[in-house]
């Protein structure tokens, strides 16, 4: 039987405020346990939550960026459950009147097609603390520093039809929240994570199959693997005549499988009700308009501009706008390189990205500044160095040996464009390699590469490759 996969994602993004959503405690990551958990975060009796203005503004900003309605009135509710990392016995969230509803975002599919993914809603809520299960002689350790950190939970429509689409959507949201500067996007630190609702149904069937929810996935790779595992698991069960249980599952990255969480935690009876400690949030139209005016250039707008302004193709523009820091670096490079956009795009996606990957560092830590890179690209564009030699220059710059011009000078890397000199080298090579010359002339064109290699070797790679090609072709004709 042919199966269709149906996926919806719930993404939790920590909002980049300085203080918590309902208290004045710091949200900074990595502090000593419980040093940033105040009386409100601890849920001590008699405290009153007061809403952080910036968290509300960030929520509204997100809504406007996905073309959603930002509610004039939204209400906080209590979601009741007991777990030690949530000391109040409830999480403050927004169920009935969320701050954001009815948005959407486009994702790019393979083959250059786009698909619109609906965003049902996004609501403000507080994060829970952390439980540590090791080394406490049968006890669990609780760190409440994270409790009360503002989150925006972004709920998609069940619009995705493969793990790849789910990952593409998650990346889009990840990119967007960083552009908006409402979330640092740090997945290792848990600032950005998601739950995936996965079900399958026979192709052509209207109603959805029973879904399983995979909780707390914190990397793009795991999202794809967890969903793919889950799809296979569900199809196998149904094809064996079984039924899918609606349940919450956890993804175990070590074993690459999902497994059911114990049934007690599935007891989803949260008894939501409006939080009597908090009044409704009212945002008037002029406030929403003012927030709209603070929106930066969004990824899809930037992508379009890169295509028209810098003449990039759609794929290059996509890669270079996925991360704001990368797009800023690229534009600064183009500027420094006097508008050499295509060369800059190639170098960004080639040497720069692979060097960053190899050294496991972020673009913000790149030892080469856009100005240095741009200056080097200018030297490629004006034929001072070849693209191949530029790799040597790039490496030297990476190792802190200074600007391109200095390196070219010091290492004698200047390209040889003197036709007479190159001809002389080629003449010698042709004279010394009669066998290959014969082969070439009798139609074995592959041998051409041999001559290019020899010429480059004789000039220490400094001969202008284009000139070498032209001169060799002419001379080998005989």
């Amino acid at each position, binding site marked *: 039987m042919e199966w269709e996969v149906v996926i919806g994602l719930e993404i939790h993004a920590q909002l980049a405020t*300085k203080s918590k959503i309902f208290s004045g405690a710091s949200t900074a990551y990595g502090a000593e346990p419980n040093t940033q958990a105040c009386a409100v975060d601890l849920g001590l009796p008699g405290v009153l939550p007061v809403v952080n*203005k910036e968290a509300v503004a960030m929520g509204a900003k997100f809504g406007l960026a996905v073309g959603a309605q930002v509610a004039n009135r939204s209400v906080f509710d209590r979601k009741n459950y007991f777990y030690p990392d949530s000391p109040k016995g409830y999480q403050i969230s927004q169920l009935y009147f969320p701050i954001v509803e009815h948005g959407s975002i486009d994702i790019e599919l393979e083959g250059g097609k786009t698909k619109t993914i609906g965003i049902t809603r996004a609501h403000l809520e507080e994060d829970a603390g952390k439980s*540590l299960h090791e080394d406490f002689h049968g006890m669990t350790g*609780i*760190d409440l520093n994270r409790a009360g950190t503002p989150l925006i939970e972004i709920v998609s429509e069940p619009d995705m039809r493969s793990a790849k689409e789910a990952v593409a959507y998650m990346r889009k949201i990840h990119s967007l929240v960083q552009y908006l500067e409402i979330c640092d996007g740090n997945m290792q630190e848990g600032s950005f994570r998601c739950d995936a609702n996965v079900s399958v149904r026979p192709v052509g069937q209207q109603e959805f199959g029973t879904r399983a929810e995979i909780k707390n996935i914190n990397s793009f790779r795991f999202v794809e693997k967890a969903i793919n595992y889950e799809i296979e698991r569900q199809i196998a069960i149904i094809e064996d005549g079984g039924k899918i249980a609606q349940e919450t599952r956890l993804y175990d990255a070590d074993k690459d499988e999902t497994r059911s969480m114990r049934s007690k935690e599935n007891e989803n009876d949260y008894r939501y009700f409006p939080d009597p400690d908090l009044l409704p949030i009212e945002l008037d139209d002029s406030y929403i308009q003012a927030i709209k005016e603070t929106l930066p250039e969004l990824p899809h707008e930037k992508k379009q501009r890169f295509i028209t302004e810098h003449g990039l193709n759609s794929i290059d523009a996509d890669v270079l706008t996925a991360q704001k820091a990368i797009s800023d670096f690229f534009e600064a490079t183009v500027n420094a390189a006097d508008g050499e956009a295509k060369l800059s795009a190639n170098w960004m996606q080639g040497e720069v990205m692979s060097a960053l990957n190899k050294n496991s560092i972020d673009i913000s830590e790149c030892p080469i500044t856009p100005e240095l890179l741009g200056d080097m690209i200018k030297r490629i564009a004006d034929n001072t160095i070849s693209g191949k030699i530029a790799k040597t220059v790039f490496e030297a710059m990476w190792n802190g040996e200074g600007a391109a011009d200095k390196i070219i000078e010091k290492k004698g890397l200047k390209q040889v464009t003197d036709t007479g000199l190159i001809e002389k080298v080629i003449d010698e090579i042709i004279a010394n390699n009669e066998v290959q010359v014969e082969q070439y002339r009798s139609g074995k064109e592959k041998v051409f590469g041999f001559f290019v290699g020899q010429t480059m070797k004789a000039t220490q790679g400094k001969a202008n490759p284009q000139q070498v090609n032209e001169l060799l072709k002419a001379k080998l004709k005989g």
Partner: protein
Amino acid sequence: MSLEKSDVEKIAHLARLSISDDDIPSYADNLSNILQLVEQMSSVDTNGITPMAHPLSESQRLREDNVTELNQRDHFQQIAPATKNGLYLVPKVIE
């Protein structure tokens, strides 16, 4: 709507309340009475009326995003039954 014994037990469990079997009938009565009142209110036509989120018809005042709380961990942890290395210790939560 009137509540059964099992409803009361479930509600008590969700709220982590320990109640004695002897008290269950009176809880069931009292809670059922409250629900009857709610049913009465439900019969009123509320079409087009925004549900009240709070008895005060005010909107939420917002706070500036500033860190105003100092570290008072030692103070707070004086009342905790068990702590270690700055963590609050609770009975093991089974994963």
